[in-house]
């Protein structure tokens, strides 16, 4: 069956089975920037924004979010038009293998959109659903801190 979704500000009709997760449907329809890690809601590689809230797309049945606003990491910024947070992640060395990065960016974007000046404990809480097996998190947390200070300095939101 085909169901309508709004993905990265575009209305799309996607082919799906009624038992499929949002992660499966997105990846089957070309949104491969959403990564499949644990498929159990623990690693955060599959994070997307659902009506502006970060969710594990592997823990969402696609049928339940039809007509809702979905934003993947490419809706935040792309290779040729990166978002400020993505630029700072790259500049800080906050990604190594890069597999967790889409989820980390989505979580950081969601956190900074809600709270442009998070404390360290708020950063840890905001990223508590994301695992990284390479960086040891130090650079990731630093990238969020730096993103926050640049956003504050420029007096802009995480857009």
């Amino acid at each position, binding site marked *: 069956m085909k169901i309508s979704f709004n993905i990265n500000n575009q209305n799309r009709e996607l082919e799906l*089975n*009624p*038992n499929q*997760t949002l992660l499966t449907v997105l990846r089957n329809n070309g949104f491969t920037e959403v990564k499949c890690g644990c498929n*159990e*809601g*623990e690693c*955060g590689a599959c*994070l997307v924004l*659902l009506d502006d*809230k*970060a*969710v*594990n797309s*592997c*823990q*969402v*049945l696609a*049928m*339940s979010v039809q007509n809702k606003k979905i934003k993947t990491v490419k809706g935040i910024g792309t290779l040729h038009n990166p978002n400020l947070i993505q630029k700072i992640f790259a500049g800080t060395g906050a990604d190594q293998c890069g597999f967790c990065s889409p989820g980390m960016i989505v*979580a950081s974007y969601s956190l900074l959109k809600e709270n442009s000046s998070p404390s360290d404990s708020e950063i840890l*809480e*905001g*990223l*508590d*659903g994301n695992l990284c097996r390479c960086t040891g998190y130090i650079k990731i947390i630093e990238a969020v801190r730096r993103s926050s200070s640049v956003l504050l300095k420029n007096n802009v939101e995480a857009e």
Partner: protein
Amino acid sequence: MLSENLKWYFPSSLPQAVKLIQKPGIILHAGGTRILKTQSKNIIGLVDISNLKLNYIKSKTNSFHIGAAITFNELIKYSKENNCLKMLAAALSQAASTPLRNRITIGGSLKDFPLWSNLYAPLIALNAMMEIKGNKSGIYSVEEYVSEGMIKSKHIIKEIILPRKEEFAWKVMRFALLKFEYPLFNIAISLKLNGKMIDDSRLVITGVRNRFKRFKKAEKFLIGKNLSLNLLNEIEKFVEPKFVSDYKYSSSYKETIAKVYFKDLLSEIIKENL
């Protein structure tokens, strides 16, 4: 694996939804996390509750009314204005992770009552009520809902009704060896104080045999007593949580740990209010 022929229903009223779930194999869908964990092949239909307008928190003179579709994070964000909401939020903020808390709903967590739920202990300690629709429609205490086996009947949870309380001391905790592990148990303690004297107390643990336990003898013992660290030694004999052994932990291990944490939490409350 969920069936490929799964049917979805999107009712717009509670009676419609109640009617749908009377059929075998048709269950409610709120956040959906539990359904995906169990992946039961026996599920043939899902009744989505998103059109039932149950995503509200209403503040009334004597109570808060929390709709079943409110997510853990929505409640946590709302919780700053009142002490009992803060107690509930403190327990919920220890559950799962930020993105999962954006999906897990109050109603879904109550309906399934996983042993590891962080929700039940504070609700019972706060003497919360709940309104259900369907078989046995009515308003029940959360404690009654679990004890009387209503949890298994075919119904929809409409809302939680939380009595508005300001002046009381509380502690909640979730015991797990790793943050991402399901907890072995949850503890919630609330003490109504009149100066240094304990006017009322509720001591609850979940994750034990029969889902939860209120230590009523300990509660009775505390009422009328003045806060003192000596109470800790005396109360020990009234706190006897009974657990079931599992593949990782023996029941006696869990009992020992739970007792230690119970005393620690009570000790913190006493020290903070002496």
